[in-house]
């Protein structure tokens, strides 16, 4: 990091002046909380008694037969309360919201997992909650819309632009500019203006810290490679972070290749994008020659985003992490394979990491140990998957 909030040439703040005060307030609140034993103890207790941490590790022995025989270990973030890693960040930010004396949170959501987690934390802590969700995604993820409503949140379908996650973020930022005095924007990924990429990483790094100890205890050594899906990149940073100093451990991010990067219909921002500014941060962006954002495409609502967290851009450029694209079909094949070989239905987002593990396992062979962040469960995707596989509902 060259300066606070920057990862090499990436990161920073590209926002209306109206938000600077709130971002400074948030940065101070976060830095103070990270050094406050009382805050850390409160969050740890919530994780123990509410989230269900530490999450376990499951070895996927039958799945491994299809992945070159490499040993495959799944970090089970899908078993967290609300069904994904998203709860880690949400509980942290909700506690900060209370500390800042704000009564209302707003959030964007793609797959609905971050929206559900936000609505959950709001219910737990007595905060008002409004979730912005692209209209297209409200159809793809109807079950999660109902969950958020049951939890007492208001869900606002966003009808501008591509009607997906990107536009939900635009609308959340407009709300925040207007209501910043009493509202915290509970951003759900490691993107956006400083301090979000750093703060959200800090709340998710527990994934990698636990996994590093668990892998050492289980196998007596560090894994050869860590794999995670990357949309904005929060679950990937969460599991990568503790292993960044371990230079022998390969860090592999799997982006959404959609119909194929070569078709232009994809969401593989690092693989197929260029450096630019989107949603308050400099990172890789899917953009045209005029700097207009290009709409992304993916079967996975949670990865369907034309930007990516700035730390991933940096890790890519310095060669510490590698990023590959997984097409829709390969992801769905891995989705089916894990369901049938291990009895675990993963989120379609997570299936991209599993498809990556099949490739990397074959490359590295049976002596390799691979750790995969099983970032979410697939209940929310049953309708999409049933349609994809032709199962009548």
């Amino acid at each position: 990091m060259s300066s606070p909030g920057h990862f090499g040439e990436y990161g920073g703040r590209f926002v209306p002046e109206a938000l600077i005060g709130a971002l400074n307030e948030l940065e101070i609140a976060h830095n103070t909380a990270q050094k406050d034993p009382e805050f850390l103890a409160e969050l740890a207790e919530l994780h123990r008694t509410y989230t269900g941490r530490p999450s376990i590790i499951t070895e996927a022995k039958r799945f491994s037969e299809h992945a070159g025989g490499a040993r495959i270990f799944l970090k089970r973030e899908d078993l967290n309360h609300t069904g994904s890693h998203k709860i880690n960040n949400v509980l942290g930010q909700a506690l900060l919201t209370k500390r800042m004396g704000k009564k209302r949170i707003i959030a964007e959501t793609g797959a609905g997992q971050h929206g559900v987690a936000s609505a959950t934390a709001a219910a737990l802590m007595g905060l008002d909650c409004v979730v912005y969700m692209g209209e297209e995604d409200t159809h793809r993820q109807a079950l999660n819309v109902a969950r958020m409503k049951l939890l007492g949140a208001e869900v606002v379908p966003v009808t501008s632009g591509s009607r997906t996650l990107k536009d939900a973020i635009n609308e959340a930022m407009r709300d925040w500019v207007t209501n910043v005095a009493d509202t915290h924007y509970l951003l759900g990924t490691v993107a956006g203006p400083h301090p979000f990429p750093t703060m959200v990483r800090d709340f998710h790094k527990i994934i990698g810290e636990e996994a590093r100890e668990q892998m050492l205890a289980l196998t007596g050594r560090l894994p050869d490679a860590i794999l995670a899906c990357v949309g904005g990149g929060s679950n990937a940073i969460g599991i990568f972070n503790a292993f960044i100093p371990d230079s022998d451990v390969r860090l592999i991010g799997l982006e959404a290749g959609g119909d194929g990067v070569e078709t232009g219909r994809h969401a593989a921002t690092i693989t197929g994008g260029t450096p630019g500014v989107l949603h308050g941060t400099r990172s890789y962006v899917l953009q045209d020659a005029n700097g207009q954002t290009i709409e992304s495409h993916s079967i996975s609502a949670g990865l369907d985003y034309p930007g990516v967290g700035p730390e991933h851009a940096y890790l890519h450029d310095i060669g510490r992490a590698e990023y590959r694209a997984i097409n829709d079909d390969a992801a769905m094949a891995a989705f089916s394979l894990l369901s049938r070989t291990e009895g675990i239905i993963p989120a379609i987002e997570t299936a991209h990491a599993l498809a990556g593990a099949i490739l990397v396992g074959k490359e590295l062979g049976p002596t390799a140990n691979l750790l995969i962040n099983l970032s979410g469960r697939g209940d929310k995707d049953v309708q999409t998957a049933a349609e994809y596989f032709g199962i009548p509902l």
Partner: protein
Amino acid sequence: MTQLDSVMAKVRAENRAALIAYIPAGFPSQEGCAKAIQALAAAGVDAIEIGFPYSDPVMDGPVIQEAAEISLKGGTNAADVFAALKVATDTGVAAVVMTYWNPIERYGVNEFAQSIANNGGSGVITPDLTIEESDRWLAATSKTGINPIYVVAPSTNDARLADVTAKTGGFVYAASLMGVTGTRTSVSTDASNLVSRVRTVTDLPISVGLGVSTREQAKSLAAYADGVIVGSAFIKLLLEAKTEQEGLDAISHLAKELALGVREGR
């Protein structure tokens, strides 16, 4: 000294506020935009902001979003923005471009500043460029002699107002309220408080934008501001018009009313 600097000095000498109109390039069409610029200039606006339509306009309300979407569907690119800027400067008014940062970075920071200068433009308003990220841009605007115009908000504290205005040229863009662009029935009292606070840290002219749509509002702002910025109100008229001519007549009428308003404030 840019033409914008001259215009702001002139209106100060005349003891009134400047009327500044915003229109996105390529809206309602490339030709329609040129005609709208000419109609606004003829009706007495002192300066024109040409908007660079952007796919993710997080500072804009529904009216400017819709205009940007129409413009982008028409294929508007950087060349069209500079062409619209040229149309404006050819009418004799001061003209600037207002754009989110990414199109500048994509075009090339130095090249963008140079193209503004080459087309007679006075400066660029950059609503999402913070001063912390501005080093390359300020080097480019300084080299090409154009005004870097920054936006300040009611939530900007006094220390930061001093920092931001120290980097600003042309005028300080004071956002009248916490929120996105769009017409409001009243312009909040935040505006006068903000303008007073900006006065204590800079001698630069101060223009107020966000929410202005009527002669009465222009008049009340002109009592204490050096410039009154109107955008969504013009765009709304163009969106609602049944024919292009009806739209041009409507914005011309509103511009004349507002031009009276900015002269009645003091």
